[in-house]
C-alpha cells in the first residue's frame, strides 16, 4: 500500500491536487498477495476435495485415473460399505459401531466436563479459597504434560475402580483432561463479569449455587457454546485415550477408522477408506462450519495464557 502511494506522488507534485485519479491498486503487490493466498488455499482445500471425489468413485476408476479428477460415475456404494460392512479384524459391521460408541462416549463426557469446568471456573473467579489458585496452577501445568506420562497410573486407577475397559472410565478420563482448557475458559469469562454484579447478588442474599444458576448461567450461554465446541472436537478426535482405555468392542470411531484403513488384510479399497475417513471427520467438520466465529473464539480462548 505504502509503495503504490509513493509512486503516485510525483504526478501530484506539479499542479497541486490535480492530475489523473489514482488507479485502483491492482499492482504487482496485490497480485503477489492474492497469488500466495490462492496457492495456500489450494493446499488446504484440495485434500478435502480429493477425499470427497475419491469416496464417490468406483475402484476401477480409481485404479486407472487421476485422484484430482471428478468422478465419471458417481456411486454411493463406498459410503454404504464404510458405514455398515467395512472390516476390522473379525468384525465386519462397518464404522457404524465406532460411530455409536463415539456418541455414547461423547454425550456424557460433554455434559460432565462442561458442568464441572463451568463450576470450577465460577468458584475460581468468584469464590476463591485458600489454595484455589494453586490447584488451578497445577491444572494449567497439567495441560502441558504429555499424556503418556499419566497413562499407566490412570490404567491402575481405573482398574482399581473397576472401570478399566468401560465407557464410563473413558468418559471420566475425558472429563479430567478436558478440565484445564475449559476451566481456564470459564474462569476468564466469569472474571470478566463485573464484580459488582456478584456483590449485588450477595447483598440480595443469594449464595454460591443461587448466584451460579440464577445470575451467572443465563449470562454465559455463548461461553458454554464455545466450551461445547472445544469438547466435541476434542473428544470426537481423540485416539490415544480411546485406544488405551477401551477394548475392540467399545473402540471410538477414530480408533476403528484407523484399524479399518491400516488393516493389512485384503485388497485396499481406497474409495471405502476415504468414505470412512470423511464419515469420521463429518462431526467436527459440521461443528466447524456451523459454529464459525465461535469456533475461532474457542481457539483464541485456548491460546490465551493462564
Amino acid at each position, binding site marked *: 500500500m505504502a509503495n503504490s502511494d509513493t509512486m503516485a506522488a510525483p504526478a501530484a507534485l506539479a499542479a497541486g491536487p490535480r492530475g489523473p485519479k489514482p488507479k485502483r491498486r491492482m499492482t504487482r503487490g496485490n497480485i503477489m498477495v492474492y497469488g500466495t493466498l490462492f496457492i495456500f488455499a489450494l493446499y488446504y482445500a484440495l485434500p478435502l476435495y480429493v477425499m470427497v471425489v475419491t469416496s464417490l468413485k468406483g475402484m476401477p476408476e480409481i485404479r486407472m485415473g487421476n485422484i484430482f479428477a471428478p468422478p465419471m460415475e458417481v456411486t454411493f456404494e463406498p459410503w454404504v460399505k464404510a458405514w455398515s460392512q467395512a472390516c476390522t479384524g473379525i468384525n465386519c459391521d462397518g464404522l457404524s459401531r465406532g460411530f455409536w460408541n463415539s456418541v455414547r462416549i461423547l454425550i456424557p463426557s460433554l455434559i460432565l466436563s462442561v458442568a464441572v469446568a463451568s463450576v470450577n471456573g465460577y468458584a475460581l473467579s468468584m469464590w476463591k479459597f485458600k489454595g484455589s489458585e494453586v490447584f488451578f496452577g497445577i491444572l494449567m501445568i497439567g495441560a502441558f504434560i504429555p499424556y503418556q506420562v499419566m497413562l499407566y497410573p490412570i490404567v491402575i486407577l481405573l482398574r482399581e475402580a473397576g472401570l478399566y475397559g468401560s465407557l464410563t472410565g473413558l468418559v471420566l478420563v475425558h472429563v479430567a483432561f478436558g478440565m484445564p482448557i475449559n476451566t481456564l475458559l470459564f474462569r476468564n469469562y466469569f472474571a470478566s463479569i463485573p464484580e459488582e454484579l456478584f456483590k449485588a447478588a450477595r447483598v440480595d442474599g443469594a449464595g454460591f449455587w443461587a448466584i451460579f444458576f440464577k445470575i451467572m448461567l443465563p449470562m454465559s450461554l455463548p461461553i458454554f457454546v464455545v466450551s461445547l465446541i472445544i469438547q466435541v472436537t476434542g473428544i470426537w478426535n481423540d485416539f*490415544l485415550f480411546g485406544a488405551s482405555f477401551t477394548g475392540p468392542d467399545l473402540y471410538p470411531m477414530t480408533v476403528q477408522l484407523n484399524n479399518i484403513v491400516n488393516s493389512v488384510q485384503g485388497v485396499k479399497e481406497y474409495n471405502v477408506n476415504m468414505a470412512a475417513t470423511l464419515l469420521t471427520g463429518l462431526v467436527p467438520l459440521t461443528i466447524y462450519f456451523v459454529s464459525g466465529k465461535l469456533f475461532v473464539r474457542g481457539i483464541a480462548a485456548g491460546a490465551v495464557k493462564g
Partner: protein
Amino acid sequence: MALSEATDAGQAGPTKKPTRLFKNMASKIAALPMVFTALVIFVGGTVWTIVYSFTGSGLLPRLKWVGLDQYERLWNSRKWLVSIENLAIYGICSLILTLVIGFTLAALLDRKVRGEGALRTIFLYPFALSFIVTGLIWQWILNPDLGLQSVVRGMGWEAFTFDPLNNSSLVMFGLLIAGLWQGTGLIMCIMLAGLRGIDEDIWKAARVDGIGTVKTYIRVIIPMMRPVFVTSLVLIGSGIVKLYDLVVAQTSGGPGLSSQVPAMYVMTAMFGGQNLGQGFAASTMMLVSVVIILVPWAILEFGGKKRG
C-alpha cells in the same frame, strides 16, 4: 481479586465465630473434582510414573529398584535414538514453518483482502479434523501409485518422483506436510488476532514516516507481537512432543523404524512390549523435554512480571 477469601480458623482472632472454617464451603465442595484431578491424576500420576521409571517393572509395575538402568537401556536403544532424531527433524521444521506460514497468511489476510472470511474458513478447517483423519488423507494423496506422484507422471513428466512415505530419509517430511496442513491454521488464527490487536495508528505513523510495508512488519509489528509469538511457540512446542496419532495413521512408524517417535516408543513399551519400566523412563524423558520448553517460557512470562 479475592472477593471472599476464607481465612483458616487457625489465624482467626478471638472475636471470630467458630463457623469460619465452613465459610465458603460450597465453593470448596464444588471444587473437589478439580482438586482430585489436579492432585491425584496430574501430580500423583506424574510422580508415580517418575518413581516407577527407576524400577525394573516388566509386565506389571513392581517396586524393584534398578537405579538408572532403564535410562541407560533407553539411551542405548537404537529405536529410541532414531525416535529422538526423527522428532528433532520434524520439530525444528514444524516450528519454523508453522511460524512462517502462520504469520505470512495472517499478515496477508490482514491486508484487507477480499474474501477474507472464506479464506480463513479454508485455512482453519483442517484444525477441526483429528490427526487420524489427517494422516489417512495424506497417506492417500501421497500414495505413489495412485496419488500426487502418478498424477504428475500422467501429465507427461515421467521422471517425477515424490514418494516420501516409502523413503526412509524423506518420511518425516511426508508427516510434516500433513502436520502443517492440520496445524498452521490455528497459528494463523492466533497471529491474525495479534495483528488485529495492534493499534491502527501504528500503521498510520509508519506511513507518515515513509516506512515500507515489509519493513514495517519486520521492524515494528513483529517486535510488538512478541507475546503472540511466545504463545504460538509454546503451543507448537508442546504439540510436537505429543506427536503420535498422526504417525500411527499415516506411516505406523515405518518404513522400518524411520518414522518412529518417542510417544510411539512409550506406547509400544507399555502396552505392546510388556516392558513397563522402559515406557516409564521414556515418558519421563518426554516430560523432561516439555519442562525444557516450558521453564524458560514461564520465567519469561511470569518471572518478569513479578519483578516489574
